C-alpha cells in the first residue's frame, strides 16, 4: 500500500458507517478497510483463510479494534497478532464502548497501544477520530520492523 491504511475491526454496521463519516468529517484521507469479526481480522493481518493471497507485507498503519466481536473477541485478536513476529509491533488502538477498569487493564496487558472509549455524542466521536488520526497517523513514528 502506498498510502496509509486503517484496519477497522467492528461488527456493528452503524458504528462502521459512523466511523466512516467521522473520518471523512475529520478530514482524514486514509483508506479505511473494515472487517466485521475477530477471526477475519486475524486472517486479514496474517494472510490466512480468504486473505491467503493478500500481500502480508502490506500492513495497515493502524488497527482500530472493538472488544466485543463475533468469533474471536478483541482480546483474542490481540493475543493472536502479538504472538506473530509480523504483527508484534503493529499499533493497535482499542476503540470500544466499555470503560470498565478490568477491560482497560486486561487490554493493555495483552499489548494494546491505546484504549479509547467511544463517546455517545457524535461531535465528540468525530473529535476522537480526528485526534486518533492526528496522533497515530501523523505524529506517531510507526515501528520500522518488516517481516
Amino acid at each position, binding site marked *: 500500500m502506498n498510502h496509509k491504511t486503517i484496519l477497522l475491526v467492528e461488527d456493528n454496521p452503524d458504528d462502521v458507517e459512523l466511523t466512516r463519516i467521522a473520518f471523512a468529517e475529520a478530514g482524514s484521507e486514509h483508506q479505511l478497510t473494515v472487517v466485521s469479526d475477530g477471526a477475519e481480522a486475524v486472517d486479514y493481518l496474517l494472510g490466512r483463510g480468504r486473505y491467503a493471497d493478500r500481500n502480508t507485507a502490506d500492513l495497515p498503519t493502524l488497527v482500530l479494534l472493538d472488544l466485543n466481536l463475533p468469533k474471536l473477541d478483541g482480546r483474542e485478536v490481540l493475543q493472536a497478532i502479538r504472538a506473530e513476529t509480523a504483527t508484534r509491533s503493529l499499533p493497535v488502538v482499542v476503540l470500544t464502548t466499555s470503560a*470498565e477498569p478490568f477491560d482497560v487493564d486486561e487490554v493493555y496487558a495483552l499489548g494494546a497501544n491505546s484504549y479509547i472509549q467511544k463517546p455517545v455524542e*457524535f461531535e465528540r466521536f468525530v473529535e476522537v477520530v480526528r485526534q486518533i488520526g492526528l496522533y497515530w497517523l501523523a505524529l506517531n513514528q510507526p515501528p520500522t520492523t518488516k517481516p
Partner: protein
Amino acid sequence: MPPHLVDDQDDARFRLAMASAGIGMAIVSLEGRFLDVNPALCRMLGRDSGELLGHLVHDISHPDDLPLTERLRQQLASGEIPSVDVEKRYTHRDGHVVEVQLNAALMRDADGAPQYVISQFRDVTAQRAAERALQAANDHLEQRVQERTAELEAAHRRLEAFAYGVSHDLRAPLRTIDGFAAQLARQAGEALDAQAHEQLARIRMASARMGTLIDSLLELARIGRAVLKPAPVDVSLLAEWVAAEMQDLHPARPALVHVQPGLEVVGDERLLKGLLTQLLRNAWQFSASRERVDVEVEGARNGHGLQFVVRDRGIGFDMAYAGKLFEPFQRLHGSEQGSGDGIGLTIAQQIAARHHGGIRAEARPDAGASFHVELRDLQVPGDNGDTHATPEVASA
C-alpha cells in the same frame, strides 16, 4: 499378688490414695498384667476388679491400639523410657470405646531394676466427643460460609456481567441514534423546517441524557462492589478540586465557593471525590435560577471520623419530601428547574454508607439546602482493615 512398696506404712497410704482417687489408677506388671486396680478405673471400664486383676492390659485395649500398647509396654519394661503420656482407647464391658489420657511411669526396685508400672487413666471420652462435635460444627460452618461466599461471588459476577452489558449494549444504540440524528440535521439543511430541526435536537438531547443515566447507573453499581483503598484524605482539598471542575464545566456561571480548610478523614479518595462531585453538582443544578452559585463546605472531626455540611443558596425543597431524596430515580424538581437524573444523591449516600456513615438533608423551599455528611475513619489495611464490600445502608 500386689507388689510391696518401700514399707507397710507407705504401702497402706498408697492403697488409700488409690482407693479414693478420682481418676483411674493401676499397677501393671512388666509383662502387662493388672496387679492392682482402683474403683475409679473399674467404674471407667464397667468391670469389677476380679475381671481385671491378673488379666492382660491387651484384653481390654481397643483392637486398633494393640500395637501401641505393646510398644509402650516394651519401652517401659526395658527402661528405655521412664514414663509415657499418651491417649489410648479401651473397651468398656458394654462394648463402647473409652478414650483415656494415659499416664504411666516405670517403678524400679532399690537396685534400680525395673519392677512394675504405675498407670493413671483419665477418661476423656466426653471431652473428645465434645471436641469432635465442635470440629464437625466448625467444618459445617466453614462449608456453609464457603457455600455462601461462592453464592455471593456468583451474584457479584452476575451483577458485573449485567453492568458490563448495560454499559456496552445500551450505549451502542445511543451512539447510532445520536450519530445519525446529527448527520440528518447536517445533511437535510433547509430541506427540514425549524420545527423538524428542533425535534432532531430533542432526539439528541434525550440520547445524551440517557448516556448520562447509563453512566450514573454504572457508577452506582460500582460503588457497592468497589474494593476500598483507605488512606488519609483531605476532604477540603477534594472539595476545592471538584468546585474548580464545576466552574470549568460552567464557565458562564458566577460562583462563590467557600471551603473550610483541613477537613480530613481516613477513606477512599476516589469514592469521596465522587461524593463531593454529586453534592456540588447538586448545588450548581439547584442554583440555576440564582445570579450566583453560593456554596459553603464546613465541618469538624469527631472522635472517629468527620462531619461536614455542603450548604447552597439554591431553590431548596420542601422537607416533606426529604425522605425521597436519596431514593434512586426520585426527583423533587421538574427538569426545567435543573433536575438531574435522580441518581446523584443515591450515589453520594451509598458512598457515605461505604464509610459507615450517611447523609441527611435540610432545606426550605427557596431558601437553599444543606447536606450533612457523616463519615467514619476506615481502617487502613494491615490494621485489621475493613476492605470488603459492606452491604449495610446508612439511614438518611
